[in-house]
């Protein structure tokens, strides 16, 4: 399972890349492998606000639909539907490039409860 240094990780196997007051959110290599081939992504609308832990959408593989949860709270300021509507399998092929949401952070302190790449690797090994 690959990880990328410098990103934050959630226990639900998402990566978070901070960019000033915003963050990009995607799924990890571990997640895409567990899901199998992704065939559909259901996005929230831009402008929607979510608390940490709330379900924001769904990622569907051929076999099943899996709810996706916000690793942090924030307002949706971007969705990567341009890539993922036509090529949902990009989540399998390049999980760390194919971001799903761009979020305006409501609370930077939440980042402290996320994991580093090293801690995330340990979590995966235990699962």
């Amino acid at each position, binding site marked *: 399972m690959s990880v990328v240094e410098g990103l934050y990780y959630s226990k639900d196997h998402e990566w978070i890349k901070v960019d000033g007051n915003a963050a990009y959110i995607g799924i990890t290599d571990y997640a895409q492998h567990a899901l*199998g*081939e992704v*065939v*559909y992504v*259901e996005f929230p609308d831009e402008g929607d606000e979510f608390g940490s832990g709330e379900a924001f959408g*769904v990622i*569907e593989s*051929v*076999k*099943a*639909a899996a709810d996706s949860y916000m690793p942090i709270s924030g307002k949706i300021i971007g969705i990567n539907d341009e890539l993922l509507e036509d090529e949902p399998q990009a989540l399998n092929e390049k999980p760390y490039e194919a971001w799903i949401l761009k979020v305006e952070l409501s609370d930077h302190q939440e980042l402290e409860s996320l994991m580093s790449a090293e801690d995330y690797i340990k979590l995966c090994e235990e699962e």
Partner: protein
Amino acid sequence: MELKKTSLNEAHKKCGGKMVDFFNWELPVEYSGLTNEHVSVREKAGLFDVSHMGEVMVTGKDALNLVDYLVTNAVKTLEENQVMYTFMCNENGGVVDDLLVYKYTDDKVFLVINAANIDKDIKWIKEKSKDFDVELKDISSEMSQIAIQGPKAQEILQKLTDSPLGEIGFFRFCEDTLIAGEKCLVSRTGYTGEDGFEIYMGHEGAPKVWESILEVGGEDIVPAGLGARDTLRFEAGLPLYGNELGDDITPIEAGLGFFVKLDKGDFVGREVLAEQKELGFKKKISGFKLLGKGIARGGYKVLADGKEIGYITTGYQLPGRSESIGLALIDKDYSKLGSEIEIQVRKKVVKAEVISKKFLDKKYKK
């Protein structure tokens, strides 16, 4: 409780199979990926371990008579070495199981039943056999079964035997056929809508047959798991017990009345089925496609005119198709082709249209 393992368990792990619990059996849901396996079967060939299926040998003077009484199809018209698909129904016409009937002779009939229903079926058959001069043997735990399916199936399998496979016709079988030196029963049957064979053998021979097929098949064949097995049969419009069939769904409601031959004489469930064929019935398994974004999944509700009219039995986003399609058990009033219906896809209601269940042109060698 530990999961049951087929004789090919090690082989699956060697092939990189993702193992799952399937009705207490440890089986691969996929190896190289669902899409790749599905497409391989349609374009070249795929290899399936179906050893979990159940097998019952019915012998004795009344063997064929008993089976004829148990099932809806006209098994007495079977020739020796011929196979028929049929249903065992209960007194309400609901389906106890769907199965294949292999006729050796009038006194020797072989039944192949669903893994999930083995115990139920054996009990049912035993109960119904009281007045028949027969011997029943559950040989499920003695047999392994491998299916090779796809346009290249025969070409590949022929490399492993001198028996002329071209002479095994559609829904015919040949026993004592040597495949890779192992004695097998081979039938031209399958669950994918493609040409292909189902091969039955004892456990000791199965790993050799499996590995030999993969070896001689090379790039033309891939091992395929339960995931692809379901998308393939769904695309071919074939029912799955537990989805399109159940003890509260009759073959008529499932749109499979072709396999119910009322004229053949008495059989369990005949009365209700005759009534349905004559007077009509209330619900029907219908094909549909989504007209909006989303994927139709089994269990989702079907709506029309502001009310619930049924539910999806199987739904998928299939490889190579842009719209999600499915099968649903709905109020018959809405089952006409072109009818507008709606599907509750989680929080959204998506428009859909009733279409023919013939999603695919089957490539049987008849």
